[in-house]
């Protein structure tokens, strides 16, 4: 069971993960990661832009890679776009598998790729001013782990 989406409105992760888990009967375990807009001093909002023709197909391609690499029963990958407030979920990835490490590693793999290799551009608003967020070195390092 595969559920890959871009959402332009705030969402409650449980409303997606509960039906996802039920749609994978016989699983041994599932792992879910939810990333939220961190509440940092003076960050008022975060905006994620994307490019329709490649962003969602890119996520589908990432899901293909995860299914090829791990023994998965199901994969849910949901990413917000648009403007978000601190505390709102940005991303939710859930993997269902017969064995725990496939589920956990698939989530780790998808998150590293969503952070550094997916077609999203982020900017944040502080003191009324928007500024673009540059790639983080740590994220590239995390991604490189999977190329070994």
């Amino acid at each position, binding site marked *: 069971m595969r559920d890959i989406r871009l959402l332009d409105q705030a969402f409650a992760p449980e409303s997606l993960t509960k039906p996802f888990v039920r749609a994978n009967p016989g699983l041994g375990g599932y792992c879910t990661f939810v990333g939220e807009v961190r509440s940092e001093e003076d960050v008022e909002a975060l905006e994620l*832009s994307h490019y329709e023709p*490649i962003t969602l197909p890119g996520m589908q391609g990432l899901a293909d890679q995860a299914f090829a690499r791990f023994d998965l029963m199901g994969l849910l990958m949901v990413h917000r776009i648009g403007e978000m407030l601190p505390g709102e979920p940005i991303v939710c990835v859930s993997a269902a598998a017969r064995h725990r490490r496939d589920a956990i590693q698939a989530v780790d793999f998808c998150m590293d790729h969503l952070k550094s290799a997916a077609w999203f551009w982020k*900017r944040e608003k502080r003191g009324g001013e928007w500024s673009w*967020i*540059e*790639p983080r070195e740590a994220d590239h390092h995390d991604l490189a782990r999977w190329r070994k």
Partner: protein
Amino acid sequence: MAVRILFLGPLRDLAGKEAIEVSAPLDWSVLLQSVGEELAGQLQSDRVNVACAGRVLSDKTSLNARDGDEVALLPPVSGG
């Protein structure tokens, strides 16, 4: 019909607009001439990708956009 050049993320701020339209066909050298000096400089960085008709080009200098194609200039994605 023409070719639409779309600016994404921080490149949109640099361009000061969302998109421009140029006449087809559009290859790499014409693209560099069409976007102005500053964006042309950015485009020559390895970190900036080009998509044409919904596909990211593995070699952007091989760009060959035809009537009706959309060419998107993709800056580095944000790790955040």
